[in-house]
């Protein structure tokens, strides 16, 4: 049974780092370097908040089954996985594979759309498929399509002659129950880590916008654009913060969308089955399949997951790497420090945090481009990935997989995949001595 791990009701006596740099999440930091490092509650939660956290933890691990059922009905008719945690492994990075076949351990999904924009400014659903391929289905339901992945390899040679092999995926849609229209746009995405998201939600919008430089006015080759997306609850156009293209305004909408699209679980926010109007529809009059309360506690859980402390924060090699992270320009987008503003959850307010993201969109080059716009994010742009906790990826998820579709097997590969606005930084890393490169990687592993 997949079961609850986020169990420590109190943060055990923590070492007291004399450097604030170790406290990646401010007071919302935990000292854990085990596979549970991403599953811990913020230590300053009140007893009531902690109860809510644990209820949300249970919801996050809840395994859905086909309706009707006594327990957890609502799965499907088409879906990618049967639980949240099935893809967001221990709240961390997923596996860089599709999980539509046994042993169902993949953590990827395929977004689809047609060119253009909906009246809300979002991606245009593909008739018969919607905006995401249902690559699994309940018994007796025809799945929408599966994705086959093949790879080709390229070699990047570093200045000291070391070679880095990059594995490039080629996605092919197979077993489609009806032909996909010509010109369909695809975007393969791997489940990202979900801890620390409450802190990101609490960063003042003005501080994010202050970093944006859409026209590259300062001429550093880096633009940094905010995504503006549709909030389905308020009906407003709002700053996007969550999702790999910053395509959701807040954690509630992100969560509600994931229930609906990833598990086929209708909810008060998105009460229509993702296959409405398609032959897969179950014809049951049981929507929404979960209550608002479930959505709320799952959202609360995501908001209150703590950030693991940086390890080896005073290690000379890691410190040298930290300086290189600045000097090579990585920190121009992977913004080291923010201060959170006010949040309804007081533990999230007024914290000095080190997320290593600016939450803005950047052109990452042709190689990483999905060529599928998502609201104002264009086909070459991705949101800067937060790097906090990234050094614990293998500990938490087993086989490390980085970037939006998990194609990079190591952090060095991930760096060498960077292009577009990150090209200068990538080349700076290419030209580092082995000692410096190792220091940079040691720094990343310390996060």
């Amino acid at each position, binding site marked *: 049974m997949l079961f609850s791990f986020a169990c420590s009701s109190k943060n055990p006596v923590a070492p007291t780092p004399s450097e604030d740099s170790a406290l990646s999440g401010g007071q919302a930091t935990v000292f854990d370097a085990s596979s*549970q490092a991403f599953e811990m509650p913020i230590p300053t939660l009140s007893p009531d908040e902690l109860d809510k956290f644990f209820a949300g933890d249970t919801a996050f691990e809840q395994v859905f*089954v086909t309706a009707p059922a006594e327990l957890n009905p609502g799965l499907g008719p088409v879906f990618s996985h*049967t639980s949240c945690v099935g893809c967001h492994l221990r709240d961390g990075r997923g596996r860089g594979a599709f999980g539509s076949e046994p042993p169902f351990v993949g953590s990827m999904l395929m977004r689809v759309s047609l060119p253009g924009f909906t009246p809300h400014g979002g991606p245009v659903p593909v008739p018969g498929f919607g905006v995401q391929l249902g690559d699994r289905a309940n018994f007796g339901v025809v799945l929408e399509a599966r994705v086959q992945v093949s790879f080709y390899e390229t070699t990047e040679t570093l200045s000291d002659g070391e070679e880095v092999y990059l594995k490039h995926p080629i996605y092919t849609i197979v077993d489609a129950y009806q032909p996909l229209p010509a010109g369909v746009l695809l975007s393969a995405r791997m489940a990202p880590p979900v801890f620390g998201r409450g802190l990101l939600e609490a960063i003042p919008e003005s501080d994010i916008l202050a970093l944006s430089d859409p026209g590259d006015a300062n001429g550093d080759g880096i633009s940094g654009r905010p995504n503006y997306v549709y909030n389905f609850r308020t009906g407003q156009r709002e700053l996007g913060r969550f999702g790999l293209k910053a395509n959701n305004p807040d954690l509630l909408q992100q969560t509600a969308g994931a229930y609906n699209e990833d598990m086929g679980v209708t909810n008060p926010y998105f009460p229509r089955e993702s296959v409405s109007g398609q032959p897969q529809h179950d014809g049951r009059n049981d929507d929404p399949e979960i209550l608002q309360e479930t959505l709320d506690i799952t959202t609360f859980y995501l908001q209150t997951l703590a950030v693991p402390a940086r390890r080896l924060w005073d290690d000379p090699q890691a410190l040298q790497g930290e300086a290189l992270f600045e000097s090579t320009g990585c920190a121009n987008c992977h913004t080291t420090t923010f201060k959170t503003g006010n949040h309804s959850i007081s533990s999230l307010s007024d914290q000095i945090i080190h997320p290593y993201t600016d939450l803005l969109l950047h052109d990452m080059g042709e190689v990483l481009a999905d060529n599928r716009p998502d609201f104002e994010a264009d086909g070459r742009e991705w949101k800067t990935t937060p790097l906090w906790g990234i050094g614990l990826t293998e500990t938490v998820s087993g086989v490390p997989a980085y970037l939006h579709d998990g194609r990079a097997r190591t952090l060095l590969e991930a760096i060498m995949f960077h292009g577009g606005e990150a090209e200068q930084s990538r080349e700076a890393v290419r030209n580092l001595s082995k000692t410096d490169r190792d220091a940079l990687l040691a720094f990343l592993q310390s996060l």
Partner: protein
Amino acid sequence: MKHITLSIILAFSLAACSSDDNPVAPEPEPDSGYDFSPILTDFSDKTVIPTYKDLANVATELLTAVQNLKTNPSAATLATARAKWVASRTPWEKSEGFLFGPVDFSGFDPALDSWPVNRTDLEGVLGSSDPLTKTSVNNLANELKGFHTIEFLLFDEGGSKTIEDFTPRQYDYLIAATELLKDAAVSLHTSWIASGENFRAQVVNAGAGSSTYTTQKAAVQEMVNGMIGIADEVGNGKIADPFTEQDTRLVESQFSFNSLLDFQDNMRSIQNVYLGGYNVEAAGLDEFVKSKDSALDQRFQAEIQAAITEIGKISFPFRDALATDAAQITAAQQAIATVQQTLEGDIMSLVLAEQ
């Protein structure tokens, strides 16, 4: 880290001062902390791997039993198959104190132990004319496979099923699902051993080349977290969820009435990690704790035993006890909570205090 750096500097300066007429070899760097190597090695070799080995063995016996059930259907062969199912639960529940590593990230846990069973789809498959081979059943979701699907097919509600209730397709499904269970158990064992995927090396070499645990402390923290996780799950999940809601549908292993034994074996899993060894003597975390605080060690051993005893006093079966034995359920929860608190507080603090 500061501490280590200082000692190195100190060692160098001592050597420099005394270098002329009375040469003294630089003192070996003082041990920077407790050496967990023997504990991590025995944890892998004498607790984890033997537990998984036993799981694979009993799952193989279960497969033989369900094959025999199909060939010779009778009340007796059904009873044997059920007994083997119960027997196979023991090593699994005794492994839940260390639900990390391949069991988690390679997907063995959901393959073996998904809950709830997707009964709607299971009825659909059984009612269809789809082939029921190992391959075809493997293609079905985890919620149609594993311990609890097999349990449902063998027992039905509260063991109400009789041999007359079995259909030919149920036998075929049962055999296919059990073959898959056995395969998963064997692969889980292989994932740890040196001749397999060798996750053992990540644990044994913690702090010495392991990419999963860059310090021994991280690996030991993993062990303690594993124990905390199952104590929490038993006390605050497996018992609390159905008890608080007074809802028998939430009871684990409800078809077989095996819940209380499951809970006890979960606590024995903690015992095995702490004392070391699966039915064998081994170095456990107790050696570390004893070296720091022998009274704590004694107390914690007693607390684990008390939790096992208190669970055992809950009236059988657990699903009926929900309504009739609240006092004892509460007592058991308290005993389990005590185990959890000691792990989270005293024992984790000792671990984190290590360099």
